[in-house]
Structure formats: C-alpha cells, structure tokens
C-alpha cells in the first residue's frame, strides 16, 4: 500500500521534471535559433554587397583576376553553406579574400579615390562589425544551451528528447578586431 503511493509519487515527480526540462530546453533552443538568424541577416547582407564591390574594383583593376576569383569562390561557398560549421568556414574564407582585395586596392589610387568604393567599403566594415556582435550574442546563447544540455541529470535525458548540443560560431584568430582598412 505505502510502497504503491511512494512509487506513484516518484513517477509524478519524474513526470514533472521531464515536463519542466523539455519546456526549458525548447525555450533556450529557440533563443539559439533566433540568435543565429541575427548572424544570418548580416551574412546575407555581406553577400549582397560583394557583386557591387567586385564591379567597382574591376573597373579600375582589371588584371587582379586571382583576387576576384577568390572572393567569388568564397561568396559561392557562403551561399551554399547549410550548417553553422560551413557558414563559419565560408565566412573566414570570405573575410580573408576581402582582406586581400582591399590590400590590392591600395595599389590603385583612382580606385581608392572613388566615392562608390569608399561607400561599399564602409558598408562592408559595418557588416563585419555587426557579424562580430551577432556572433557574440549567438555564442552566449549556445553556451547557455549547451550547459543546460550537458549538466547532470539533464545530460541523461536531453538526447532522448531529441536535443543535441549547438555549435559555436567561431571567428578566426584576430578577426574579432575591427578590420583594418587604411588609406
């Protein structure tokens, strides 16, 4: 008799815990997804800026084919990226390719003086900064989510409920600083 009540009580407690855990996980995971959408918006904005930038630069520096190809390739990789990991790699590739592009632009005084080029460069710098901040917010949310999933006793159940740890969006070393583009 007493044992039965005890068991029922225990089951109810476990049920409540599962309910609470599931709802918390859903809430925190939604935050992670929302934070990712902030990064995504900025990545898309950068993708949209690049064709314009390439056109402008090509007008002044036709012979730098290798540089253009790298940027185009990185942009294509960015467009095709499906997972956080792929986006991260494409983003780092793109950042590197753009850095080279701006370094090459140094050799073309007419290009540097072009108002259009300056404007695009400003926009890109702004986007880079925004990506950095969006990444900070995203990674903070991922950290909270992963701590929740991996701490005991949640770790025993989270995966059974269909929750897997989220991936961090990492910057390449040194990319966190503002992109240095001087004229």
């Amino acid at each position: 008799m007493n044992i039965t009540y005890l068991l029922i009580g225990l089951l109810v407690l476990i049920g409540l815990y599962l309910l609470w855990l599931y709802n918390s996980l859903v809430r925190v995971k939604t935050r992670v997804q929302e934070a990712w959408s902030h990064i995504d918006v900025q990545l898309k904005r950068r993708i949209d800026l690049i064709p314009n930038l390439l056109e402008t630069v090509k007008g002044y520096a036709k012979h730098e084919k290798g540089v253009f190809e790298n940027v185009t390739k990185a942009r294509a990789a960015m467009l095709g990226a499906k997972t956080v990991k792929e986006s991260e790699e494409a983003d780092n590739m793109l950042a590197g390719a753009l850095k080279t592009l701006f370094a090459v632009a140094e050799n073309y005084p007419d290009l540097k003086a072009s108002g259009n080029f300056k404007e695009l460069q400003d926009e890109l710098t702004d986007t880079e900064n925004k990506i950095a901040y969006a990444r900070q917010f995203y990674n903070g949310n991922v950290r909270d989510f992963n701590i929740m999933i991996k701490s005991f006793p949640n770790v025993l159940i989270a995966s059974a409920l269909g929750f897997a740890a989220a991936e961090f969006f990492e910057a390449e070393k040194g990319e966190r600083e503002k992109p240095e583009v001087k004229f």
Partner: protein
Amino acid sequence: MNLYTQIAQNRRRSFFLFFFTFLVIILLGYVFGAYQGDSFVGAGLAFVFSLAYAGTAYFFSDRIVLAISGAKPIEKKDNPYLFRIVENLCIGAGLPLPKIYVVEEAALNAFATGRDPQHSVVAVTRGLLENLEDEELEGVIAHELSHIRNFDIRVMTLAAVLAGSLVMIADIFLRSMRYSRGSRGRGRVSGVLFLIGLALAILAPIFAQLLKLAISRQREFLADSSGALLTRYPEGLARALEKMGADKTSLQHVSEATAHLYIKSPLSAGFRTSLFSTHPPIEERIKRLRAA
C-alpha cells in the same frame, strides 16, 4: 547568474515592489478613511488614485521624460556614426533598435527610457557626442542598453511612482489630521489605529524613498557591469565616466523626478549623503570597472 535569470529576477522584483507598496497604500487609505468616517472609501480612493498614477506612469513616462529633458529624435542620416554604434550593440545584446534622441546641451550625460525593449528610447547629449572617443561612447550606450535589457526602467519608474504616491497620500493624511481636530471622525477611531496610521504616514514615505534610491544605485552598478560585458571593454566606460565626472557643466532640463534615469547624476552632489543619492559615487563605479 546569466542574463535571462537577471531579467526574470528584475521582473519578479518589480512585481513584489508593486504589490507591497500597493498594500501599504491601501492600508494607509484604510486608516485615513477610518479617521474621516469610512475606512473602505478611504482604501478604495487610495487604491484608485495610485493605480491611475502607476498606469499613467507606465504608459506615458517615456514621453514625459523626453519632454522634460528636451530631447529630439534623430534619423540615421543625421548621425550615422551614433546609429551604427547603437545598432551593433543592440545586435550584441539581442535587442530591437530603440529610438535615438539627442539633447542639445553641452553637459555630458545620457539616459534611457521606455517601459520595455519594444518601446525604448536612448538619449545622449550633444556634449557627450562631441567629447567622447568611439569606445567611450560605446561604453555609455552599452550601459543604457543594459538598463533597457534588464527592465531597469520599468522597475525604477514603478519605484518612483509608488514612492511618490505614498508621499502624497501620507501628506494628505497628515495635513487633514492637523486641520480636522475635533471633527466628526475623531471619536470613532481607536487610539491604536490612529497611531498606526500616524507611524505609517511618517515612516512609509521615507522607507519608500530610501528603497527607491537603493534600488537605483544597485541598478547603476549592474548596468555598468553588464554594459562592460557587452562591449568586452570595461575601460571604455571607465574612461567615459572619468570624463563625465570631470565635466562640471550642468544639465538645464532636468528635474528631481528624472534624475535617476541618467547615467551620471545630473543633480549637483552638494550635501547629499550616499544614502540619499540616486547614483553610486563615480569613483566607486570606475574602480569596480577597472577591477574587473
């Protein structure tokens, strides 16, 4: 403690603050009413009055504050530099973009208002824009955004309003006692009730004020530290505070009622002791930022 716990805690805090102050107000109204003849009318009146006051403050305080400060809204094209800083930090904090206002004054100061992140406003003075470096301005904006994100403005508005209505009701109570000696109500109230009422009328407003000020000071420290966490550069805000501390220009459009909203107390320190001040001493804030 993570950010969301912080926010949840603040929401709870504003609820309890609201609840208990209301209780005291109603109690005061009850005793007051008993003194005048009908305790329930008194309680009812006190309730309706403070509810109306709190409601007005909740929905209109931002407009009132902006009107008092003389702040004017700006567009992105007016100051893309300031806009970008706010945009970036908002992305970092996961906040919607607030409306941005500029106060055309030389004093170095800034404030935030609005009942929730969707209705928020950040205002900075012209002097601040002209005198701060990039990372210093970022520090200040991050401090203001932290107030918004933590729902500090709501807590502070409620605290100020409830403390204010307590003062008013207590004032009415004390005055009416002075002028109604020997009136019809006097005989009906027991001495104990009368003493409770008197004690409440005198003590409650003082406690409410002290509570409000203590909360305000604690919120400033918290906004400093969460702002520093947002920019990942505490030194920026520390230097900005240093400049603000050295700045002796005073704000023209400010009142006692809006003082607690600013990043640096806009009222002259004068003879105020730390217990009665809306802000912790600037040196202490800088020290804590640099110790981090």
